[in-house]
């Protein structure tokens, strides 16, 4: 505390004590005069005034102009008290006005309260002056009171402005100081922080340096190791590359030398590979062009672009045959490329183009050969057979010589056998080329079989072997069959049975079995040895025959083979049910029972009838 402030403090104390004593003085005087009412008022007014004074001077937040202002007010009031107070006019209550305005801190509210007070005051003065009401205090007191109030008010107002401003300034200063202090603190903190950081950094750098040194050492080792490994890898790469290029060369060479046109495309048709043969066939400018040409060629059969995109639809291969390009015929095999290792992903397609012109020509000439052979062989054979039979019938007298008759007989039976063989060959060729026509009709086997047996019984010459038909116990459903083929098969089985049976008889029976009707031919013949049973139904197989002994049975060796093919062609099966040597054999064939699905026309049409082919050939 400075000297100046000490003085001020002392001054304030003195003023306060003096003020307090002075204010107590008046009530005490009134009380001594027994004027208790005035004493109370003076006392209260003095108390209020004093409190206000104490408040003002002890509040340190008030700046010095405010305090001086208040001291001024106090002075005026003290003067006022000394001049008019004791006369008992009671205007002290006006001292409340500055107190109110002080409490209200010079705000507008305070101002309004002041003005209202003035109005009341002036009204009283006005009313007294014109003697409207009689008030008994003097005009001097009124003016003094008025002046005191005015001075106080003006001072108060100014004080508030000054005090407010000062307060603001002080606040601002304080704020500024706080701010500066804060800034300073911040700077300090930062400095400390930076210092710490620097310390850390230093440590780190040290660590790093150490680490780097270590690393450098490691790196040297690593480099050595790497170099070794690199050398190894390079070797391996060279090796693999070599392997790869070998494989590629092999593949390229294989593809290039394929006897097939080869086209490979990925599913986006971006990568297309073709070989020279494909180029030759399709005559495309480049590989892409080849693919486009191929699209054009196949456009009637398949949308190739779509096929490639969908990767062969359901990853299925397709074959198109007999496609003509520039007078030659080709077969196209389209096949998706599927990588089995990776979830069967399809990566593209391969198209193989095979020139089948030669094969077609060959097939055609083979077909033609058989047709011509049939025609050309059978006509003279028929003539031989016809003429010998006529000799035997109409010139019996002319060939009385038994030797001559036997010779003519042999010629006749030879011709019959030859015709049968030629017929068998023709049948086989037709069956094998799937060109056999089946005229499938609903057939009642229970009716057909006795008819065939009857017919056969009349035409076949044999001794003491009986052919019997055992009618079925239950009704037999109709089957889908070509009656001519059934006839051929049954006659073949019957013929075989008779051929190998010397005593006893042959029994034919029918029975329903699941969805088939089965025809059984049971004989009492010599039976088939077990080891030969598996050879039945194959081409040129005769049981118990070698190349030199086969003639004894006197057939082409195609009978059962043809029977099998024909029955299978009608959806049935030929079987050797059982066979025991010297006891007999049971052969059977089955045919599917007629139902809604197989009743639809299953007739397979020939592309060209054989007659037409022979005509072509003749022309």
């Amino acid at each position, binding site marked *: 505390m400075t000297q100046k402030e000490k003085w001020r403090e002392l001054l304030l104390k003195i003023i306060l004590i003096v003020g307090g004593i002075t204010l107590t003085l008046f009530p005490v005087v009134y009380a001594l005069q027994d004027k208790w009412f005035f004493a109370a008022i003076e006392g209260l007014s003095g108390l209020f005034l004093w409190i206000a004074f104490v408040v003002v001077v002890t509040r340190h937040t008030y700046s010095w102009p405010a305090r001086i202002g208040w001291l001024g007010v106090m002075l005026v009031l003290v003067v006022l008290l000394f001049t008019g107070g004791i006369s008992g006019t009671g205007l002290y209550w006006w001292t409340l006005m500055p107190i109110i305005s002080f409490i209200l801190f010079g705000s507008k509210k305070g101002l309004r309260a002041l003005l209202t007070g003035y109005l009341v005051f002036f009204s009283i003065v006005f009313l007294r002056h014109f003697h409207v009401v009689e008030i008994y205090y003097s005009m001097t007191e009124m003016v003094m009171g008025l002046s005191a109030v005015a001075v106080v008010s003006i001072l108060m107002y100014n004080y508030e402005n000054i005090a407010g401003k000062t307060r603001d300034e002080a606040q601002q200063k304080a704020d500024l100081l706080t701010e500066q202090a804060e800034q300073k603190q911040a700077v300090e903190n930062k400095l400390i922080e930076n210092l710490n950081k620097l310390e850390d950094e230093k440590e780190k750098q040290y660590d790093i340096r150490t680490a780097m040194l270590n690393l450098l050492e490691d790196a040297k080792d690593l480099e050595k190791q790497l170099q070794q490994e690199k050398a190894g890898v390079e070797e391996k790469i060279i090796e693999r590359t070599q392997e790869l290029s070998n494989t590629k060369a092999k593949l390229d060479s294989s593809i290039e030398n394929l006897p097939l046109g080869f086209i490979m495309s990925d599913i986006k048709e971006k990568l297309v590979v073709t070989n020279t043969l494909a180029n030759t066939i399709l005559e495309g400018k480049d590989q892409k062009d080849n693919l486009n040409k191929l699209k054009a060629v196949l456009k009637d059969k398949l949308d190739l672009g779509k096929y490639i995109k969908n990767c062969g639809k359901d990853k299925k291969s397709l074959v198109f045959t007999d496609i003509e390009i520039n007078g030659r015929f080709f077969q196209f095999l389209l096949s998706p490329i599927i990588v089995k290792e990776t979830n069967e992903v399809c990566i593209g397609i391969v198209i193989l183009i095979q020139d089948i012109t030669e094969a077609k020509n060959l097939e055609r000439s083979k077909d033609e050969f058989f047709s011509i052979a049939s025609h050309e062989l*059978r*006509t003279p054979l*028929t003539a031989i057979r016809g*003429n010998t*039979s*006529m000799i035997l019938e109409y010139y019996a007298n002319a060939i009385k010589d038994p030797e001559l008759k036997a010779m003519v007989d042999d010629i006749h039976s030879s011709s019959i056998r030859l015709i049968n063989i030629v*017929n068998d060959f023709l049948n086989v060729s037709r069956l094998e080329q799937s060109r056999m026509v089946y005229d499938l009709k609903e057939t009642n086997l229970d009716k057909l079989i006795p008819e065939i047996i009857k017919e056969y019984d009349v035409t076949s010459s044999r001794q003491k072997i009986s052919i019997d038909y055992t009618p079925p116990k239950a009704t037999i459903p109709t089957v889908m069959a070509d009656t001519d083929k059934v006839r051929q098969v049954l006659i073949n089985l019957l013929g075989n049975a008779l051929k190998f049976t010397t005593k006893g008889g042959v029994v034919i029976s029918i029975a329903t079995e699941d969805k088939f009707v089965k025809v059984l031919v049971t004989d009492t013949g010599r039976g088939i040895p077990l080891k030969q049973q598996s050879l039945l139904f194959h081409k040129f197989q005769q049981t118990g025959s070698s190349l030199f002994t086969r003639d004894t049975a006197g057939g082409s060796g195609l009978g059962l083979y043809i029977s099998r093919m024909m029955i299978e062609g009608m959806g049935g099966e030929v079987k050797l049910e059982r066979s025991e040597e010297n006891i007999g054999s049971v052969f059977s064939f089955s045919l599917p029972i007629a139902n809604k699905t197989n009743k639809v026309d299953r007739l397979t049409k020939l592309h060209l009838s054989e*007659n037409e082919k022979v005509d072509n050939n003749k022309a």
Partner: protein
Amino acid sequence: MTKILIVEDDPLMSRMYQKIFKFEGFEVDFASNGEEGLDKIRTGKPTLVLLDIMMPKMNGLEVLDKVKIDPDTKDIPIIMLTNLAGTQDAEAALTKGAVKYIIKSEYEPKQVVNMVKEILAGYTRDAVPAAS
């Protein structure tokens, strides 16, 4: 007398059928191609014709067509001769009005005569053929 016309280009076959029909007491005439056959059908008015399908100049089916559209000849029964069974040509002949088709290699000459006799028996009962 029953007159049989054999239209067949192969002399072996033709002669064989001629003989058997002669032996069996038929009057026999023959032609060795389609045109000649058609002529002889028109002029000779046979009771029955054996007509081969494959022949030079005019094939059997063409002859059959012409015979069947001519009111004078359409009632003459015609049996087709063929080499192979079940061919479209033979089946077509039946729809065009042939009575039957015979696969030459499958029958002895005598059996062919028997078939002809059977057919003619049917016709004489109904007294249809005009030429007899």
